[in-house]
């Protein structure tokens, strides 16, 4: 069992309250997943810049003078905001790959949580309310975000086993369920050169989507093919720079409820997570159909599988 929440805002006036609303939704889902929690938040974009969100178990040591050291290795400015065990490194977008390589060398114990122009991922072991407080999630603003509360079934309770997973630039994935063919798929993807860090089943799902998109699929196509290639139970919620998507396996035993108003599209593992959203009493509330890819986007020209907000 796990809990998923997601909020995609159509009304920009709600953007300063995104973190606050998502935090309440996340905490409501504590009894579906009390062992770890995480949140992916899509914030403001700064022209030409991109962000790496990194994590360390020894942040005092690892983040000390990290920005200064990186400045010597990449072109342009580097800024660093440390938030508990995480730090957000902002730099020129074309320097991100160089910075990642440099980090592996100068700070091998630092783990990259996410990479993207607007995306930041924060996740840790612990009760959702404690994780939210550590990262001050309530104060965060943004256009959309996805949260996850984990009750581990397939692998260890660790920071790297927590969700969301970063699947590509500005992309993330959360999962409720359990994949049954993750070992064979992990071996296949590793043979193809895909980096997979842990024994976690969801990381394999995330790596699978990343690999599909790197080999020419759109996100919608990658989600569609996941229905053929992934065995087991899953409700996936994915985030992109422009929007978010939902897909459930054909059996669809993992719960999912959605609500839509003029102001937002919301996702919850249970209706309980949505009850305090504004206008919920008059929202359109429904369960996403099994084996069907849903997508909402801020993109003015959505693809066939997207829906303009």
């Amino acid at each position, binding site marked *: 069992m796990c809990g998923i929440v997601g909020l995609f805002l159509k009304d920009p006036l709600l953007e300063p309250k995104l973190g606050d609303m998502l935090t309440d939704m996340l905490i409501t889902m504590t009894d579906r997943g009390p062992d770890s929690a995480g949140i992916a938040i899509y914030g403001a974009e700064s022209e030409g810049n991109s962000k790496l969100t990194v994590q360390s178990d020894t942040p005092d040591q690892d983040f000390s003078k990290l920005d200064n050291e990186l400045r010597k290795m990449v072109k342009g400015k580097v800024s660093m905001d440390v938030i508990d065990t995480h730090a957000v490194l902002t730099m020129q977008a074309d320097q991100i790959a160089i910075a990642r390589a440099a980090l592996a060398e100068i700070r091998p114990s630092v783990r990259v949580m996410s990479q993207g122009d607007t995306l930041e991922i924060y996740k840790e072991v612990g009760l959702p309310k404690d994780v939210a407080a550590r990262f001050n999630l309530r104060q965060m603003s943004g256009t959309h975000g996805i949260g996850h509360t984990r009750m581990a079934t397939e692998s260890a309770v660790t920071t790297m086993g927590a969700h969301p997973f970063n699947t590509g630039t500005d992309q993330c994935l959360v999962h409720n369920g359990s994949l049954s063919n993750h070992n064979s798929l992990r071996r296949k993807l590793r043979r193809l050169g895909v980096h997979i860090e842990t024994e976690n089943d969801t990381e394999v799902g995330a790596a699978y989507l990343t690999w599909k998109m790197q080999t020419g699929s759109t996100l919608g196509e990658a989600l569609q093919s996941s229905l053929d290639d992934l065995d087991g139970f899953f409700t996936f919620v994915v985030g992109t720079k422009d929007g978010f998507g939902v897909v459930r396996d054909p059996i669809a*035993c993992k*719960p999912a*409820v959605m609500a839509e108003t003029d102001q937002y599209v919301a996702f919850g593992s*249970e*209706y*309980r*997570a949505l009850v305090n959203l504004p206008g919920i009493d008059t929202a359109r509330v*429904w*369960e996403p159909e099994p084996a069907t890819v849903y997508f909402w986007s801020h993109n003015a020209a959505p693809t066939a599988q997207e829906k303009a907000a």
Partner: protein
Amino acid sequence: MQTFDLEARGLRDLNATLHAQAENTNQTHWEIINPKGSHAIAVGLDAPIEVSVKGSTGYYCAGMNKQATVHVHGSAGPGTAENMMSGTVIVEGDASQYAGATGHGGTLIIKGNASSRCGIAMKGIDIIVHGDVGHMSAFMAQSGNIVVCGDAGDALGDSCYEARFFVRGSVKSLGADCIEKEMRPEHIAILEDLLERGGCDAKASEFRRYGSARQLYNFDVDNAAAY
């Protein structure tokens, strides 16, 4: 009328209060406010009382119900009226997966749509759905009736026994050993009674009947490859 604020007083207090109502209680009408999708509202009732829930409910609302009438003025989460023995449960909105699962008796009326696995392993309950039902509905259904005024999803009635399924709209696919059956006068009479109890604006003549082909009841060596 007794009003109970679930948010203020909590679930244990609610269910303990409802369980304390005896057969001859004079507090026969209960209104639950602020349900906010909470789990296990009004489960295990065993008295002829009427409980009205003003909002949407979470998992297992009105599970194991006996005698009581539970009326949800909203939508209901997974496992609503699971293992009901008798009484009536009415959902004004939609019901999530496995509504009425394993129900032995009583009537479950869903005025919106029911999700997947509606009536799974039902054992005598009558389920009346004004809208559609999702995939794998009536899986392993043993006895009782399901009425679907809309459409049914994939694999209706898979591996069913002696339950009856009446569907007005389309059936996406039938499950293993489930077939369409002749609608005889006695079935029309049963369906007319169900439609009236469910408050459905539909004519019995518009429905088709489905049920077991009875080919999976006993082991058949010719089917060995299918197991």
